[in-house]
């Protein structure tokens, strides 16, 4: 069986884009770009599923992968820090060229295996899904999932619940000490006696009143205490 011209054009256009997106995902310097390129590839795969008669899977691909999974990825990226760059130091010497060579070799072997299999079996005709999808794709899948694969389906339900509980346990943090409120912090300051008053505000008597600009003390020297630790060190040498 051969596909129509429309599907061939679609395949060559979108297939090339999918491979480009995958390569760009591996090569992108920032993790956010990687996530976006992966989303492009996944949407193209959804188009391919629908083109191949898997309408339900195409919709699930968009909803689950590009919707939920990629959103989760971006969410964790925001939590972990978007600008966490890849370390370029090589822990294992010559690992990168070896990995590229192994990838090319693996691809050649599997592509050769598929080509060999289709040559040996005399290029079997694709049966096509017209007969199987006659009663509707969703109905056919439902019959398989809820009758023949019911046990596996119930196991996946258990798996999802276990995964949810596991993620909750991993994300849970036990607090070993009592939370330090305003009262406790104030009492702590008086007990130590080092800095009883509140910290000075940033930018007071300085040239600018930006939050990362230290306040000036009476003798004209900048007070590092006035700047939030997050912003400290950004203004070195230009006070």
């Amino acid at each position, binding site marked *: 069986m*051969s*596909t129509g011209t429309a*599907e061939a054009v679609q*395949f060559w256009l979108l*297939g090339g884009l*999918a*491979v480009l997106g*995958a390569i760009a*995902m*591996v090569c992108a310097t920032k*993790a956010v770009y*990687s*996530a976006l390129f*992966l989303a492009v*590839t996944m949407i193209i*795969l959804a188009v*391919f*599923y629908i083109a*191949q*008669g*898997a309408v*339900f*899977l195409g919709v699930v691909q968009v909803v*689950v*992968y590009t919707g*939920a*999974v990629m959103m*989760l*990825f971006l969410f964790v*990226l925001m939590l*972990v820090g978007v600008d966490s760059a*890849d*370390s370029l130091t090589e822990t294992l010497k010559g690992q990168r060229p070896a*990995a*590229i060579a*192994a*990838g090319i070799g*693996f691809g050649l072997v*599997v*592509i050769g295996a*598929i080509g060999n299999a*289709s040559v040996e079996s005399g*290029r079997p005709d*694709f*049966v*096509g*899904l017209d*007969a199987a*999808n006659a009663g509707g*794709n969703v109905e056919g*899948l439902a019959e*398989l*999932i809820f009758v023949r694969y019911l046990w*596996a389906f119930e196991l*996946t339900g258990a798996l*999802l619940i*276990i995964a949810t509980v596991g*993620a909750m346990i*991993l*994300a849970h943090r036990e607090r070993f000490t009592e939370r330090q409120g305003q009262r406790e912090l104030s009492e702590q300051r008086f007990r130590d006696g080092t800095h009883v008053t509140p910290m000075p505000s940033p930018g007071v008597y300085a040239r600018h009143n930006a939050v990362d600009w230290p306040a000036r003390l009476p003798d004209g020297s900048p007070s590092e205490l006035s700047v939030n630790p997050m912003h400290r060190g950004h203004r070195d040498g230009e006070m």
Partner: protein
Amino acid sequence: MNPENYLYLSVLLFTIGAAGVLLRRNAIVVFMCIELMLNAANLAFVTFARMHGNLEGQVFAFFTMVVAAAEVVVGLAIIMTIFRARRSASVDDANLLKN
């Protein structure tokens, strides 16, 4: 066009994903590469379903998606826990057992 080309595309995507797992250091990007490999396997399943004219391949792709969703949830939680302990998402920095 022979629909076998979908299988070749699937192999290409799987290979790129596998190479990405070996090449990249950022744990989140490594995880995305694993997702790409799972997607490539799904494309092969869908193509085989069309090749043999029954829906079993699509059922398997569906189960793969469920397992992938569970895996993403747990994996990202583990990455978050490692990041919280070591302030880094690089797989090279998780070398506590080395020395």
